[in-house]
């Protein structure tokens, strides 16, 4: 999970650069595989982000679960 924040940062950087990319001038001479390599960082960031959000979501729902349990006891 320690790589999570780093991946999210990478995701933001990559998506910002991608948005600024101009169309390639000589597409036939550029390895289209490069796009797939760069995209993997973005995907890893999103998958990581989803995992983090899921974790927080569970914490939030857990919090409510506990409180309603506490109310029941009181």
């Amino acid at each position, binding site marked *: 999970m320690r*790589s999570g924040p*780093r*991946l999210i940062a990478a995701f933001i950087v990559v998506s910002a650069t*991608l948005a600024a*990319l*101009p*169309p*390639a*001038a000589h*597409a036939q*001479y*550029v*390895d*289209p*595989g*490069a*796009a*797939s*390599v*760069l*995209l*993997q*960082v*973005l*995907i*890893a960031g*999103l*998958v*990581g982000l989803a*995992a983090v959000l899921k974790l927080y979501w569970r914490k939030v729902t857990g919090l409510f679960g506990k409180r309603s349990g506490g109310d029941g006891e009181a």
Partner: protein
Amino acid sequence: MSRHPASFRDPAGHVHERDGKVYRTILPWGAARYRAVRESGFLETATASGRLIEGREVDPAVLGDEAPDAVHVLEHPHLAFVSHPYEWSFSGLRAAALLTLDLHLEALASGVTLSDASAYNVQFAGPRPVFIDYLSFIPYEPGQVWLGYRQFCEQFLNPLLLTAKAGVAFQAWYRGRPEGISAADLSALLPLRARLDPRVALHVVLRGRLERRVTAHDTARARGVRLPKAALVNNLRSMRGWIAKLAPRTSATSWEAYERSAHYTPEEHAKKARFVGDAIAVARPGVVWDLGCNAGAYAEVALAHGAGLVIGFEPDAGAVDAAFRRAAEKGLNFLPLAVDVTNPSPDLGWLQRERAGMAARRNADAVLCLALLHHLVLGRNLPLAHVIEWLVGLAPRGVLEFVPKEDPMAAQLIALKPGIAPEYTREAVGDLLAARACIEQSAVVTASGRTLFAWNRA
């Protein structure tokens, strides 16, 4: 030369076929990597589970002058039948995709990774996918990305999405472009709702756009990209979870539904099954080709009566998928392919030798041609004599079903073309068969006059 015509891309080694045996050479370029992978223990685990084809190291000099540089030589079992991804059913391609991902994940746990993700590295033993390449596995280096990601998308994910999200059968397009379906092409025709799916937006739409906009500068930057191993594993797992849930958009039909449309009473079906079973039990064929196999009911009968392996041919995407699921659920040694026998796969790829066409892969000891002849002659206007000659040429033995024009199903085919194929009669079929082979049995199996012929030209 014994080298396999599809084996030329990998500088690490090649596949040779000699005296009915299959050998894989490992050349100096890939020898150290191969040994590192072998030492990891991954190959042993993967072969033990049957997901990677067996490979036994033999004397490196076995191929003599044909492979003087070979550092190692592996001997592999001979595949009963080679099929290509553009011939697989949706469920077949999905099973091959999941196998590729599972092996990649398993490999990573042993410090090994996959250098590519070619669908042609998967073959089928019945409905069970088996990975056949050893040299795709290389030692994992920390920070490495998913090297075969783009190829995985083009050869597995995109064809599956075409069927799952757009409801279009992927096989014809895949055959036209054996390297797979590109992201740009697919995203151009996916419906808006599909493109709004975040995973489609990322793996298809965005990837397609990026590929068109990428520059030499990005290539340099891509070289420096490092991905933590946990992130690589997460990417593979997330892809696996997604693919496992993909299903054809059009058909949720079970194979029973296909059988119900066959228009036989239970007694008639039993009579037909008995005829087919008896013919197979006498011939004991190693390989049966079931032409127009539908959902595989008679392939199952053939297997129950001693056929070793059945290869099915069925152009209907829903039926062939149902047949594949039937084979997988029941553990039948049956591989149904999405192939129209009137337009079989041609020789494709580099020098037109890379992916062998259907004619070059003919290996049937017997053929079943049940409820198909009327489709060919009445539906497709093929001359009866040509069809019989082709059929008898396919295998030394077979069972042919004749469906008369008066049969309700055949009548539907000719409703708009009365007078077609006047030569199409039971007598003509019998005479044409008898001129080329010995008719060992024949029987009328339905009230409508459907007739079965068992012939033998051996």
